[in-house]
């Protein structure tokens, strides 16, 4: 009995053996586990060897061991992508036959078209038109209700397919505003006068010394053919409405002068050969649904 309690490996209070581990005088009692639990631990080590054989495991100089079943996480991703593609093809089947109007009327197709359109827009259009179609100077904001070439689904689809001023495409949107200054068609004071008149048309203040009478005359002679006598524009010709609150290049005198003197004639690529028809249709629905669709 005395012998037992003197033994440093036996805890005096409980009479239990200790593991010999001691922290600040607190000793750990040895509470033995069943031995077969230890064997289970060894079994897991043996099991892990199987992984070395079955799966890619050991790094080599330039590669790794391949494993006998040829598993690769990259191949798994590829298989997943292929499955996704097949699934999307099935969904797109309904979209291939439907018109943009029919797609908008069908909640399921509409949801798919919006998702596909948003993704395609981000990949192909956002570089110029900005994320969400917010636009920038010279690149129209697609959220507003002002359209150069028309905001109906058919007009949007046509614009996406064939672009604007695409060389060699007979169906492209095309028109040409002359560079009135650069080509010497108008004199400096005539350009200043007509710029003032455009501001007058838009309801914007003009400078007191501006020659509005000259401006009116120059406008009637050179601009009204496309932009209309009242400046309301013409979507057949891509001629913008000059009277509304939206402008692509700015309505201050400097911007107007530059536009009239050098002309702008922005371009957009046609997507007919680069994107499939279903994607173009999805883009049409997406752009039409941003808010300005007519």
């Amino acid at each position, binding site marked *: 009995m005395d012998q037992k309690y003197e033994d440093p490996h036996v805890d005096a209070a409980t009479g239990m053996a200790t*593991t010999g581990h001691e922290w600040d005088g607190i000793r750990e009692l040895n509470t033995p*586990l069943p*031995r077969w639990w230890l064997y289970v631990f060894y079994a897991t080590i043996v099991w892990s060897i199987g992984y070395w054989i079955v799966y890619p495991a050991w790094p080599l100089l330039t590669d790794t061991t391949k494993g006998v079943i040829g598993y690769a996480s990259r191949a798994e991703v590829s298989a997943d992508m292929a499955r996704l593609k097949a699934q999307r093809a099935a969904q797109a089947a309904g979209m291939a036959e439907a018109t943009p109007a029919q797609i908008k009327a069908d909640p399921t197709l509409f949801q798919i078209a919006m998702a596909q359109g948003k993704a395609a827009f981000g990949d192909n259009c956002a570089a110029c038109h900005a994320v969400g179609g917010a636009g920038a100077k010279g690149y129209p*904001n697609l959220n507003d209700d002002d359209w150069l070439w028309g905001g109906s689904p058919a007009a949007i689809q046509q614009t996406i397919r064939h672009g604007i001023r695409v060389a060699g495409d007979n169906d492209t949107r095309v028109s040409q505003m002359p560079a009135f200054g650069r080509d010497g068609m108008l004199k400096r004071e005539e350009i200043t006068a007509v710029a003032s008149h455009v501001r007058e048309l838009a309801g914007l203040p003009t400078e007191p010394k501006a020659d509005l009478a000259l401006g009116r005359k120059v406008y009637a002679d050179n601009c009204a053919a496309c932009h209309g006598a009242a400046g309301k524009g013409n979507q057949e010709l891509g001629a913008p409405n000059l009277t509304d609150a939206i402008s692509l290049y700015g309505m201050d005198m400097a911007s107007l002068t530059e536009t009239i003197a050098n002309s702008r004639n922005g371009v957009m690529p046609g997507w007919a050969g680069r994107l499939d028809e279903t994607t173009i249709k999805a883009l049409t629905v997406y752009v039409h649904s941003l*808010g300005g669709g007519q």
Partner: protein
Amino acid sequence: MSSAGTDQDDIPLFAASRKVYPQSVSGPFRRAKWIILFLCLGIYYLLPFLRWDRGPYLPDQAVLADIANNRFYFFFIEIWPQEVYYFTGLLILASFALFLTNAVAGRVWCGYLCPQTVWTDLFLAVERFFEGDRRERMRRDAEPWGFDTLWRKSAKHAVWLVIAWWTGGAWVLYFADAPTLVRELATFTAPLSAYVWIAILTFTTYALAGLMREQVCKYMCPWPRIQAALTDDEALNVTYRYDRGEPRVSVKQAAKLRAQGAPAGDCVDCFQCVAVCPTGIDIRDGAQIDCIQCGLCIDACDTVMSKIGRPTRLIAYDTEGNIQRRLAGLAAIYRPLRLRTLVYAALIAVVGGAMLWQLATRSTAGMSVLHERTPLFVTLSDGSIRNAYAVRLLNKRPEHRPFALTVSGLPGIRIEAIGAPPSADLRPVVTVDPDSSREVRVLVTVPAGVPLVASQVITITASDLFAGETVRADDHFIAPGTQP
């Protein structure tokens, strides 16, 4: 042992496993355990087949964890993923209920209700059916196996596996329509995951209830350790009343001692309490982590006490405090109402009440509004300003619901929703499918001439056209602001 005292290699860190051969026993506790076992297993195996009508659009299974559609159904309760805080509440309730029962009557959970106990009890019954009671099983294991032992053990393992397989089979039924899945399983057309889960649960049930048994409670389960820290001297526990039992003497010796007027305990050292114990312990060593407090030793001891004509309940639900009081010549006191039991009960009432209140006032519609950031605002050709929002409407009812959208906060403000036709009064109507949500692009426009600052608050309201339920959300309306 080395002289330095650090070399411990000769101390065994692992114990040879000691097989426990619990003996059969009868009595009120055994009877209660059978009843609870049948109730618990009956609920577990049959509950998936119980139907609960939720209309044409929702599953009619009373209890269903519909992982694929992100819904959990429990009778009249339906939980969406964003409402999993109910589970947090349930977990809090479960732990406080555990603490409360522990403070009142010890490890009631361990002894009667824990799946480990229930399944182990069932598996032991099977073992006893094939291999006989304690002595016979011990004899068989000690002898070399003959044909008789071999077939009995094989049959036992076969029945264990069938029960284990059925356990796994019932588990997967909680995750899909039970009758459909049973048909699919029978025709081998069920999803692979169903078979995999059945296999996993077959294995775990077989291993835990058949092979590991009391080792799960002794080595794996955290609750005994926590319980030991949560109990006190006034909690009822399965207790050996050593004030009455000691000193242990034989029946004859006790009679002789009592005749002489000398003290003699009631315990006759028959070891019946040890023989019936499913974890193989001696309850007379006092409260211990290995004791699951199933009460079978009470039944065993009562049988012996009745036979030798001594009062029963030498082992009983009693408190350490009462033993001390009796030793001091005082009367036993039972105090189930103590500060800790009252606090636990109050916490259960508070959490349970909060959950009930949540459930009773749960809205069946919801709306979240997210302002589109590209662009923040758009100027339209007539000079009006427009903002776009992604509005998600939630319909938690099992029917189609049309929500009319309105907006307020600025003069002349209008709202339209892409893909949602306006109603007669020009409010856009968004119809949401039963028990689902729908996101629509919403355009809010303020006419030119309305004075605007860079950001102002507007309120979007969605009203159910039929039921009248209304949900609101505030968001910002962004404008060019103070620029000229």
